[in-house]
């Protein structure tokens, strides 16, 4: 598991990133206190990755190879978590992933990208995000 960046920025994830991405990640890191993955936060806040309706990260626009590798890496880890949690809750992996997507889309911050139920990419505004009508209402 990745425990985020250490002080010198030598996490396994960061080794594959270019200087530009690393710089962006380090700048964005203080703004994103919630996630322990600055590279993910940077890609999110810049709109390079967005939350899909199926519980995985997607690309709203053209994404660099580095961004794709980052998202693929995270999506594989997410899938592992979904599989484990689906087993303990006796539901399908898809059901657990969709349920998580409901929450993830709700948690997106201003300016971040998310996928609407029709498949189109939206930018999060102050208003409630457009979510699948099976999602539980926001608390």
């Amino acid at each position, binding site marked *: *598991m*990745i*425990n*985020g960046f250490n002080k010198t920025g030598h996490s396994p994830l960061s080794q594959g990133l270019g200087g530009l991405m690393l710089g962006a990640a380090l700048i964005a890191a203080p703004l994103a206190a*919630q*996630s*322990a*993955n600055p590279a*993910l936060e940077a890609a999110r806040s810049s709109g390079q990755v967005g939350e899909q309706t199926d519980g995985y990260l997607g690309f709203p626009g053209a994404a660099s190879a580095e961004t794709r590798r980052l998202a693929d890496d*995270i999506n594989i*880890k*997410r899938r592992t*978590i979904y599989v484990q*949690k689906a087993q303990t*809750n006796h*539901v399908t992996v898809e*059901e*657990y992933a*969709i*349920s*998580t997507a*409901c*929450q*993830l889309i709700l*948690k997106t911050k201003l300016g971040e990208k998310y996928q609407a139920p029709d498949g189109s990419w939206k930018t999060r505004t102050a208003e409630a995000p457009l979510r699948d009508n*099976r*999602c*539980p209402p926001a608390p």
Partner: protein
Amino acid sequence: MISHELTLRARFVTSLLMQVRQSGKRRPMARRVTAVAILLGGAVALSGCVSVNAPDKPIVIELNINIKQEVIYRLAADAANTIEDNPDVF
């Protein structure tokens, strides 16, 4: 005179009786004919107007939607915990 009167009477009586009986017989016949005609007409009209076509697409009842919604609602708390517990991927 008597015979004439009798014949007249007889004619009168018979014709009247026959008229009554004939008319009495005719009415049900006429009714039957009209009833049959109405029925036939109705049947023709019905067969001409009402047409039932079998749907060309199979009838599908989406039971998955409700089941999934129930599951997604139930998993909401668990999913929220999962997101909190794995901040490096969420």
